[in-house]
């Protein structure tokens, strides 16, 4: 039996949402602030101001797979990631933080922020384990919602970015 391409699938995929249809910067900032207060400390403030990231940056992210598919990516300077890890661990922080400790703690922050972002998205979605390293590439500049903040005066970005390339423009 042969099937006819009705164009239905194409039409459905044409309606694929981009992140800016689903959330705004204020939501991301609010999610991040809540995570910071809980994980990093009650007195810790995120100031919504842009800053120049240093050359040596580290990113942590989780992937969200569902009606919207992409990543929630935190990027900051390596030294700031270390300070964040120390703040997260508080008195449980070892005297010398190994790279593994930093990756683990910074990854957990992405996990918590990513979980809250996922909760704000429509429909059931799956969350990956956190990853740390070089941020995934932005596949579609139109499918990015990014917040620039300062933590203890140091720049940090939170980018919620789609994993799929833009759809071809129909003529």
């Amino acid at each position, binding site marked *: 039996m042969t099937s006819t391409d009705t164009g239905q699938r194409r039409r459905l995929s044409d309606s694929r949402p981009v992140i800016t249809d689903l959330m705004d910067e204020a939501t991301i900032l609010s999610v991040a602030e*809540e*995570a910071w*207060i*809980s*994980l990093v400390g*009650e007195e810790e403030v995120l100031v919504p101001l842009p800053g120049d990231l240093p050359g040596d940056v580290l990113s942590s992210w989780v992937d969200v797979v569902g009606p919207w598919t992409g990543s929630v990516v935190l990027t900051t300077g390596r030294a700031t990631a270390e300070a964040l*890890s120390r703040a*997260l*661990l*508080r*008195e*449980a922080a070892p005297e010398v933080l190994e790279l593994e*400790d930093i990756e*683990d*703690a910074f*990854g*957990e922050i992405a*996990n*918590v922020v*990513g*979980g*809250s972002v*996922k*909760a704000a998205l429509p429909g*059931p*979605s799956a*969350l*990956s*384990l*956190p990853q740390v390293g070089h941020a995934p590439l932005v596949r579609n500049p139109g499918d990015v919602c990014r917040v620039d903040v300062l933590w203890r005066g140091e720049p940090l970005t939170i980018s919620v970015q789609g994993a799929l390339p833009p759809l071809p423009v129909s003529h």
Partner: protein
Amino acid sequence: MRALVIDDSRAMRRIVTSILTDLGYEVRDAGHGGEALEVLNEGWLPDLATIDWNMPVMDGLQFVSAVRSNPAWRRMTMMMVTSESEHTQIVRALAAGAHEYMIKPFTADAFRDKLALLGLLPQEVAL
């Protein structure tokens, strides 16, 4: 009282362990469900297990199901502590046998309140 903290993040294990130790718990930890089952199989049975959802090797839901299949482990209270906050996920965890659900991020006070609800605050702390 005893608690088993199960989370693949060492940082989160340290945070939860610190809260529970301050409350007077004797705490052990595990990096995933499989490691946690090894602890239980040693005969170290906790009053409380805090369980992350997304972990490598054996995730939190698989761990809850494994515990529920062993009558000898029935008296252990299982609390999911996870960033999975969708209603359907919460229902799945409770249906599998978890007793309580705590969404990350949380504060130490919120954690303590959950334990109080479960009747799991050590007596000297609850007073």
